[in-house]
């Protein structure tokens, strides 16, 4: 019962994550060409320019953390519903990590915000945000709410009823 909110926010987050990956995150127009990049496209662009480290930061923040978070929150919710007694300490640790790290997915949204404000050099180069920036921000917000609605005390509730 008490996991209903967790599931609702989590599913909303997963749904918002789909357009976040299929649509354009960043529209770059220069004198010669206009290019549109998705999240993954942006990562590959960075690799092409040789910025492997930054590409890794964006990949971790925008792909690994969100997907890992979907899996982790779902696992926590399922294990509580099954009244699992296994790995309580590990699950508790996992919850702490999820709560701490989830917000960091917002990095790419902020990058898009700054780039589009900064690079407005008419005729030379302009950068504008795409619809994916919006859906990605929503996805992060929804999964943060999912993690917050999870009651970590439920992990330990089984202790009380254990024979």
């Amino acid at each position, binding site marked *: 019962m008490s996991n209903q909110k967790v599931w609702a926010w989590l599913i909303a987050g997963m749904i918002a994550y789909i357009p976040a990956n299929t649509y354009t995150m960043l529209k770059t127009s220069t004198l010669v060409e206009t290019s549109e990049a998705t999240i993954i496209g942006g990562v590959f662009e960075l690799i092409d320019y040789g910025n492997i480290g930054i590409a890794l930061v964006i990949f971790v923040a925008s792909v690994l953390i969100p997907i890992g978070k979907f899996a982790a929150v779902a696992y926590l919710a399922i294990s509580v519903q099954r009244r699992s007694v296994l790995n309580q300490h590990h699950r508790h640790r996992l919850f702490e990590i999820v709560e701490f790290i989830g*917000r960091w997915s917002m990095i790419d949204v*902020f990058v898009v915000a*700054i780039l589009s404000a900064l690079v407005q050099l008419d005729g030379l180069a302009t950068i504008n*945000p795409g619809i994916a920036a*919006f859906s990605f921000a929503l996805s992060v917000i929804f999964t943060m709410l999912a993690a917050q609605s999870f009651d970590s*005390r439920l992990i330990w509730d089984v202790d009380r009823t254990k024979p």
Partner: protein
Amino acid sequence: MHDKRTVALSNALPPLADLIACPQCDTLHRVHDLPDDAQAHCQRCGLVIVTSRPKAIALVLSLALTAFVLMIAAISFPFLDLDAQGRHNSISMLQAVMAFDSGVALLLAVAVAGFIVFLPLTRLAAIIYAIGPLVRDRPARRGAQRAFALAELLRPWSMTEIFIVGVSVALIKVAGIASVTFGPAFWAFCALVIVTVLKDQLICRVSIWKALEQLKG
């Protein structure tokens, strides 16, 4: 209904004021007075429940005031300057946020402005309002508990430190096409991030809640 077991249990428990439940796993502990600079962990999940630092509340207040002033500086001065082949563009923090200005993107602008400016500011104001009088041993202000609860609620949503990382990534991305110089607001914002992290490290929630309870106006 008279249940013998319940009676026996409540007799065995110390007074309610001496008990503390771990906020994360609900284990009940008995509180002792801690020696200075000591920390009390939860026996089961290891969360730090109480930190005993007598001067901490005054420190938290001064750091919150510092952060508040830095935030005002960070939104009033130029944040970044861009130079590319004779063209020049200078932006403030709010401009950086208001890049999203059309259609649904406006919602995103509001959210981003909230995460990096308005929610952090509200949170700082709430902390200052709630613990200000405690430092001078005055009775707590009206609604001080609600203000502190609000500050706690907003904690995950104020994303100043994440924004700074975002700025660094963005700067590396534009380094190829233009040269960027940092404005005073950028440095104010960096200082703000450090001060905020320090402040959140020092806050001992249990001590503040207790003080608010005792000095209730």
